[in-house]
Each structure stands twice: as structure tokens, then as C-alpha cells.
């Protein structure tokens, strides 16, 4: 298992290197940040001075190697437009993004799993059918439009919830989070719901399929024949067995909730990492783009690792070994 983790880490270092190279080449192909950021009436001398200040006056390969050697020491350079260390710019957004993603994932699970199990246990009932119908809506509504509708309903018409932004941040045992204030949670609710709806639909389908498959299996029949109460049958034995596919999907989707919340973040003016990435690409802020992708790749690697470890915990038949990674 230890060898397995080592191997995973080595793979991710290679991925990080290739991503950095790609970003450098891509931005070089798109345009010159010095020109993009400069006013049109800048003189040649002023443009050259800017290029020197940003380190853009060297050939690309030199820029890349300087970046590599600094990055090896944890320094990703300074953001062109914020003037702050790029990694700080990205990481300062991380709490907001994590809160949103975790809240959305939480909503997706607590809504999706019970509904999916219900639809799986009673596929022909009116309830089961309408759940499946509802999940189609969850899949097909564009998140942009759906977000604006949520704002319109809950913020503009009913005025129950704020239309966007991040709420007050509270502090418990030194940990800072907007989960700790009512204002914070009220700001989180709409964007999290907006992101959760699609995932709810997904989890309903996964949970339903897994439920359908599991209830027909021998051990379930045996458990029922043994006279176990239905609550224990469903709440323990069924639930435990459908969790593996749910965890797989959730692991993959959590990554995308964290890294690609761009649409929701812009509609709700939520200061997360996705919004930062879009702005940075527009301004060709290379250090931030690189730092962002590095952080994201790292996150995906860690999440996948946790998912693999969870498998082993959930299903004792799965054993992690260096060989099969």
C-alpha cells in the first residue's frame, strides 16, 4: 500500500510538470501579457520596462526554467495583475471554494441517496416515477439559467436569501469559515443548491441502479429470510452496498465541484477559484493560471487517493497493492 502511494505521487509530479509546460506554451500562443495589460498609448520604452518587471523579456525557455527552479522551492512567482504571490492569490480563494463544494456535495448526498434508494425500492410507485422524472430536469437545466432563476425567486421576489457574494466568516477554535455564521450559510445556500441540483440527479440515478441490483442478491434475500427488520435491511445492508458506486461518483464529482464551479461562481458573484481562473485567463495572468492548475491537479490526485482508500475501507475484498495501480 505504501508503494502504491509513492507511485501515485511520482505520477502526479510528472502530470504537474507537463501541465506547467502546456500552460507556458498555450499562453505564449494566445498573446503577450505585456501588450494585453498595457494601455494603447504606452511607448516602446514603457513596454520594455514592463516586460523587464514581469520577467517577460527573456526567451520562453529561460522563463520556463526559471519558473521550474523557483517552483521546486514552492515559489510560483507573483501574479501580474494582483502583484501578490500567485499561490497566495489562489489559496486565499480555496476556503470559499471548498465551503461551496462541500456544502453542494453534502446537499447532493442527503437529497440524492434517499431519493435514489426510494426510487430503487419502489420503481413502479408514483413517487419513484416522479423522482426519476425530476432527475431528468436536474440534468437538463442549464446551470446558468437555473442560477438566475434561483436568484430571481429567493432573492428578488421572496427576498429570503442574498443574491450573491460570500457572507460573514466566523471563527471556531481558530478555524475560519462562513459555515459558522447564519449570514455565511445564507449566502452559501443558493449557489450550493445550484451546483447540487445536477449532482443530485446524478446520485439519484446511481443510487437507484445500485439499489435495484443489490436487492435481488442472495445475501439480501437471506437477510430478509432471517427476519431482519426492514429498517436494518435498508438502512445498513442495502445502504452499505450501494455506497461504493456513490462514493466513486462523488469523488469524481467533488473534484469538478471544486475546480469547475465557474458558472455558479460568476452568476452568484462568489469569490471562489473558478471565477479567479476565468479572470486570470482573460488577463493572461500566467503565474496565477499555473498556480491554479497545480493546486487543482494536486487536489484531484488527493481526492482520488482518498477514494481508493475509502474503497478498501468499504469493501474488505478490495486490497490496494503497488502492482495494480
Amino acid at each position, binding site marked *: 500500500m505504501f508503494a502504491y502511494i509513492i507511485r501515485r505521487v511520482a505520477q502526479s509530479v510528472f502530470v504537474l510538470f507537463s501541465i506547467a509546460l502546456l500552460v507556458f506554451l498555450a499562453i505564449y500562443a494566445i498573446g503577450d501579457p505585456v501588450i494585453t495589460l498595457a494601455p*494603447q498609448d504606452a*511607448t516602446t520604452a514603457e513596454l520594455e520596462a514592463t516586460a523587464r518587471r514581469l520577467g517577460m523579456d527573456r526567451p520562453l525557455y529561460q522563463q520556463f526554467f526559471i519558473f521550474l527552479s523557483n517552483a521546486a522551492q514552492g515559489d510560483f512567482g507573483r501574479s501580474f495583475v494582483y502583484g501578490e504571490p500567485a499561490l497566495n492569490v489562489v489559496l486565499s480563494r480555496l476556503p470559499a471554494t471548498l465551503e461551496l463544494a462541500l456544502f453542494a456535495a453534502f446537499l447532493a448526498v442527503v437529497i440524492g441517496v434517499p431519493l435514489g434508494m426510494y426510487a430503487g425500492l419502489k420503481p413502479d410507485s408514483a413517487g419513484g416515477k416522479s423522482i426519476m422524472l425530476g432527475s431528468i430536469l436536474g440534468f437538463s437545466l442549464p446551470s446558468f439559467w437555473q442560477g438566475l432563476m434561483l436568484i430571481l425567486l429567493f432573492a428578488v421576489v421572496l427576498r429570503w436569501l442574498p443574491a450573491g457574494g460570500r457572507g460573514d466568516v466566523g471563527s471556531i477554535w481558530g478555524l475560519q469559515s462562513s459555515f459558522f455564521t447564519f449570514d455565511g450559510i445564507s449566502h452559501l445556500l443558493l449557489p450550493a443548491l445550484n451546483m447540487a441540483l445536477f449532482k443530485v440527479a446524478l446520485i439519484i440515478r446511481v443510487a437507484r441502479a445500485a439499489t435495484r441490483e443489490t436487492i435481488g442478491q442472495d445475501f439480501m434475500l437471506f437477510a430478509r429470510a432471517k427476519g431482519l427488520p426492514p429498517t436494518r435491511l435498508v438502512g445498513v445492508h442495502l445502504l452499505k452496498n450501494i455506497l461504493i458506486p456513490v462514493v466513486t461518483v462523488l469523488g469524481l464529482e467533488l473534484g469538478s465541484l471544486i475546480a469547475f464551479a465557474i458558472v455558479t461562481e460568476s452568476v452568484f458573484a462568489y469569490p471562489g477559484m473558478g471565477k479567479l481562473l476565468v479572470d486570470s485567463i482573460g488577463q493572461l495572468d500566467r503565474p496565477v493560471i499555473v498556480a491554479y492548475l497545480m493546486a487543482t491537479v494536486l487536489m484531484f490526485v488527493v481526492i482520488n487517493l482518498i477514494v481508493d482508500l475509502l474503497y478498501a475501507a468499504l469493501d474488505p475484498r478490495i486490497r490496494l497493492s503497488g502492482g495494480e495501480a
Partner: protein
Amino acid sequence: MHTFRALIVAVAVLAGVAAPRPASADDLKLGISAAFTSLDPHFFVATANIMISRYMFDALTSTNERQQVVPALAESWEAKDDLRWEFKLRPDVVFSDGTPLTANDIAASLARAPDVEGSPSSFALYTRSIANVDVIDPLTLVIETAHPNPTLPVEMSYISIIPEKLRNATTDAFNNLEATIGTGPFIPVNYVPNDHVEFVRNPNYWGPAPEWETATVRLIANNGARSAALLAGDVDVIDAVPPADIERIQASDNTIVSAVSNRVIFVGLDQERDESPFVSTPDGGNPLKNLLVRKALTHAIDREAIAARIMKGAALPAGQFLPDGFFGVSENLDLPEYDPEMARALLEESGFADKVKLTITGPSDRYLNASQVLQAIAQMFNRIGVETGVEMLPWSNYVSRLRAQEISAFFGGWGSVTGETGVSMLVTTGTVDPDRGSGGGNRGRYSNPDLDALLAEAARTIDNDARNDVLARASELVIGDVGLMPIYFEITNWGLRDGLTMQGRADQATLAASIRSQ
């Protein structure tokens, strides 16, 4: 099912708690469309950064709603001769930390502004004419320029004044609020990059005290989200109201304030090269070099219709570089008449009727409704027999293409930072000479020695009336040559909660200190 029910209850409880959103009379919340990137007032010449600087800092001079220069930290100024300007400081001004303002602070700020480490685009633009700064006494200083510079007073309105002791302060020191010591109406107390800044009123401010105890400026870049924030009462003021939302906002008891901006939106034409990549004729060559063709194109554009129907009133049709009433505008220039018949006749006369194929290139993410406007212009060109297509690119890509001259007709905008037409013409139509900063935005490479001479004359004419006349003549020359085709001036719309008033500004800035309750 229990979990789901519990969730609904939780939502209802939370909503109940969140429902009374106290809009205190002393707090002002603003939703702004453009990203500000730092609190260091000398870090980045970007419109939004300059706007945020104006909350915390003052400059020697300031500009009013119509972009005319007015006194700020300097009570008065005069040109001693062609090269020397004497500024008299307002007495009794103190910084937010209590230290009094002196001429040394001005000198230090002028020295720091063009020289900030890591600046992506520096304020050197506004200090480059300065050769020397002489501190005569604590309240008097003389700025000497390397060459006559009549726009020095307005350029000085861009240089925020910081205390002398912060001459070598880092950008970080400003961003973490250690160095945000200014003479302006507000003091920042919390800054989250790319999200919001919170200000409190500066008790030591020398001017009329702002009505607001606190002001929070939030970045809400998405148009729909910004309108929703105002409608939901999250914010009291928003800028850049999208035209489609104006009615909706007015219908719900909010106020709309409009102002014609100093930004002209234009179409430029490649008129230098013999072969241009996106224009063609059966016989080869570049028809855009022909004045008759350019005249035909400009008379083919129905500017009124574009302003009224596509921009829905968020634009004023333009026939020159700045709207009426600005400095250096010609009274003899009317809107180019919309006359497709005449345009066709001009095209026949040039010999290019039904022969020209053209593609106009524009940025997709920079100007309001740019894509629809360009589509309309292309249709208008098609109507007179110029087969026209449109290509839209993201800004970063577009700028690189412009610079590489991989365009033949292009869509651009220019906001006059000085409020005069001089700099607009120098940048967009002056003969390309990057060493002088001339023609930096002149991607069509229009070049006319007479124009260059007039602009040079204006640049050394300190006398305002005389300069105004020279610039008006220069405007007539460029427009007569169709050096570029102005289409419209952007009109900025602000949405304000009922009970608030403000003056719309030509520089599109939203300043909490000048927003009042009725």
C-alpha cells in the same frame, strides 16, 4: 425522507433569520462591473484601480463629471512659462494618520508612481513629461517638464499622493492595509482581492464629509448578477447597468442615472498596406486605401439605428472623438449622414462597386454588445455592395492579432484619459511611432503629416483657447480623411436604490463620496 424534510425546515429557518436585511442609512454598498486588482494606487493603470484609489487618496488635481480639471490637493496652479508649472497646495490637509501634507509628499509620490516593482502597466504614462520636481516651500512646488505639456494638470489627477515615508513601500504593504494612508474621503478596513473592499469614513478628510459611515465596493462582473443584486437589495448602487435591464430596474422603484462617457467606439480600416489580409478584390490590392471607398463605408453606417436599437439607448451616435462640450471638439463636424444611395454612388465612382470582400475583426469580451453591433455594421456594408463578414475574438487574442497587423477592419474603443481630443487622435490616428507614444492604437496605420503637425502644435500650445482651435481643426482633418470611423460614444448607466442620487461621470467612475440620499 426525514432528512429531506429536516432540510426544508432548515432552509425555512435560515431564510427567516436572513430575511430582515438591515439597510442601515449610514452604510453604502456598491456593485461594480470591472475588476480592481490592488490597493496600491501606483501599481496598475487600470480604470477600476484608479477608481478605487480615489476612495482613499487624492491627487494634486481632480476632474469633475464632465472631466474638466478642478482643484484638489493643489488649490491653484499656473504655467510660469512653457516648461514650468507652479502648484500651490491647500493648507491644513492631513493624512489619515494625522501627519500634515507637504510638497515633499507630492515629490515622493511623483517619484514612486512610475517606479513600482512588478507593475503590469505603470503610471509612467502620466509622469513621462516631467523632467524635475522642485519643492519651493512646504506648500509650493514647481514641476518642470522636458517639453511643453499643456495636459500636465489633468495628468496630475491620476497620480495619487501618498506620504513621503511610503516612497519605498511595497505593493504588499498597501494590499495588507499597512500603507493605505491617504488624504481621501475613506480609509480601507478590509480588502479581499478580486472580491470586495470595505471602507470607513476618514474623519480627517479635508473636503465635505461623505454621507456614509462605511462603504463596501463589491466586484460583481456578471451583468445579470449585478442587476439581481440591486433588485434584491444586496447593494444600493450598481454601475454599467445592461441596457436590457434598465426598464426592469426602473419599474421596481430604483433610479437610473446616465452619463455620456469619454469613450468613443469606432471601426478602423487598414489604409497603409497594398495587400491587406482580410480585404480582397478580384484585381488584388487594398480598396481601403481609396478615400471614396472609406467615405462610402462611413455613410453606409446607420449610427442612430445602432444606438437606439442595438444599444437600446446606452450609446450616443458619434461623428468625432469626443461628445459635444469636451475639449478639442469641432463644431463644424456633424454626424456622418446615413445615406446608402450616396454610399453606393461613391463606391461606383471608386470603381469598386460589388467587388470588395471584407472581414471586420472585433473583441468579444470587451465592449457592450460588440458582436451585435458588428453584425449590424456588416449588414449595412453588405447593403451597399461590400461583402462583409465578422470575426469575434477574446480580448487577449484580439490584441495580439492587432499588434501583428493580422486585421483589415477592426472594432475598437478609446476613452480619452485627459478629456481632450488631442491624446485620442495622437493614439488612434497619429503616424505610428512607438518611441514617441504616437499611433499606439492606430492599427489602420493612417498617416497624414498635416495631422501630425497639428497635433505637435497642440502639444506645445499651453493656451487653452488656441489649443482648442488647433485640435478642432485636426479633428476635421481626420474625419474628412476617414482616418477612422467613430460609431458611438458609450453611455454609462447606473442603477441606484430609491432615495439615492449621484452625478453620472464621463470617466465612468462610481464614487461613494459623491452619492447622496435625497
